[in-house]
């Protein structure tokens, strides 16, 4: 894909649409809690994407509301969801075996930090008094065939969240292959190179100015 410039930084919804367009037809996908769940809004039946939820279901449908709510049918974010035709249920060890055995084509996760080696930090801020809580993040990050990260490029303090080396506690080592941000999409090449595939509302130079290591242009 050639580098292109959209008019403005993307909203989370717009970014979700960009991620959705990159998920191959027929893929098995896990969408992490929070912003990544927006991606499901942009998957069409023609995409034939099957959603996994790590508490024990393949073929998860959309959010349930009103009379549809069944307390025995929730997703990993503990939100009531619906079935789809062709769904299936399994226990927690079988569900995580599926993730850990490399059967998910893709997972989409939020992040605090990603570094140029594809290391991911998304579970713990590193504050000494914070109570650690990890859930399935490490299994997803390490187990899926591809791990996509979806985040703002900068934190509230203006610092880039794409860094030379993660300073926060890691979730997984070298696991991230793409980073989707409001300002650009980054391809993590695995050899330390990070390619800017496209930018949104800014140009390569503006992105490079934010990111504290040398980026490469898309060819």
């Amino acid at each position: 894909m050639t580098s292109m410039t959209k008019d403005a930084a993307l909203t989370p919804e717009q970014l979700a649409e960009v991620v959705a367009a990159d998920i191959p037809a027929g893929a098995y996908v896990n969408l992490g809690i929070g912003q990544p769940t927006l991606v499901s809004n942009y998957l069409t039946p023609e995409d034939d994407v099957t959603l996994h939820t790590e508490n024990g279901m393949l073929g998860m449908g959309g959010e349930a509301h009103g009379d549809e709510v069944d307390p025995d049918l929730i997703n990993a974010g503990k939100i009531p969801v619906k079935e789809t035709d062709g769904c299936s249920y399994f226990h927690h060890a079988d569900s995580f075996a599926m993730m850990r055995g490399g059967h998910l084509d893709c997972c989409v996760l939020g992040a605090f930090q990603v570094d140029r080696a594809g290391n991911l930090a998304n579970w713990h801020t590193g504050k000494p008094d914070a109570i650690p809580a990890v859930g399935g993040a490490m299994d997803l990050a390490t187990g899926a065939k591809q791990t996509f990260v979806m985040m703002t490029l900068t934190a509230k303090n203006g610092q880039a969240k794409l860094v030379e080396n993660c300073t926060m506690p890691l979730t997984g080592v070298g696991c991230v292959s793409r980073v989707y941000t409001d300002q650009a999409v980054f391809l993590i090449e695995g050899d330390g190179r990070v390619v800017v595939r496209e930018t949104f509302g800014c140009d390569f130079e503006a992105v490079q100015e934010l990111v504290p290591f040398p980026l490469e242009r898309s060819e």
Partner: protein
Amino acid sequence: MLTIVDSAAQAVEPITDGSTVMIGGFGVAGQPVELIDALIEQGATDLTVVNNNAGNGDVGLAKLIQLGRVRKIICSFPRQSDSYHFDAKYHAGEIELEVVPQGNLAERIRAAGAGIGAFYTPTGYGTPLAEGKETRELDGKMQILEFPITADFSLTKALTADKAGNLVYRKTARNFGPIMAAAARTSIVQVSDVVERGALDPEVVVTPGIYVDTVVSIPDPAVGHA
């Protein structure tokens, strides 16, 4: 051998101080609410609890923690918006916490039931949760050595049991039920319904009766707390 008892109180009666107790459920689904309430009532203390979380609000596992009955919790996600009883005990140094990636938690529980002495997994390698653990490169990936989590008792919820102890579950309420029942020395299960042998199709049994020690019928179980 299976015992079918009349009340949740009878079901949890054998749990002694110092026991390790696995408690099933993920979110509101699959929580054995009546068994947990019976355990609160029963009084056993100095417990090690294995659960995905560390309790919510003022009821169930959170209540057990508030009462100071839980010495240690092994879970994947203790911190939640309303896990204030756990948070308070943790910050006061009054409860021990072992945080385990959810897949390692599930696989370690499975390992206990399956007689696996230990296993290598890439999950957690290079993270603070792998500190002090043995590592090894296998299949081109750095992996860590994880050990089974055993338990004296498990408290889980299923939909239906037959009189051979076979269980079926409902939707995502299945979650930790099958692996906890297999891992615990004594598995205690609440079900909505007990049916005769032969009333469950042998093809659809999820937990074979060999893993089930005590069943109590709670026909209209409360929805879990979350």
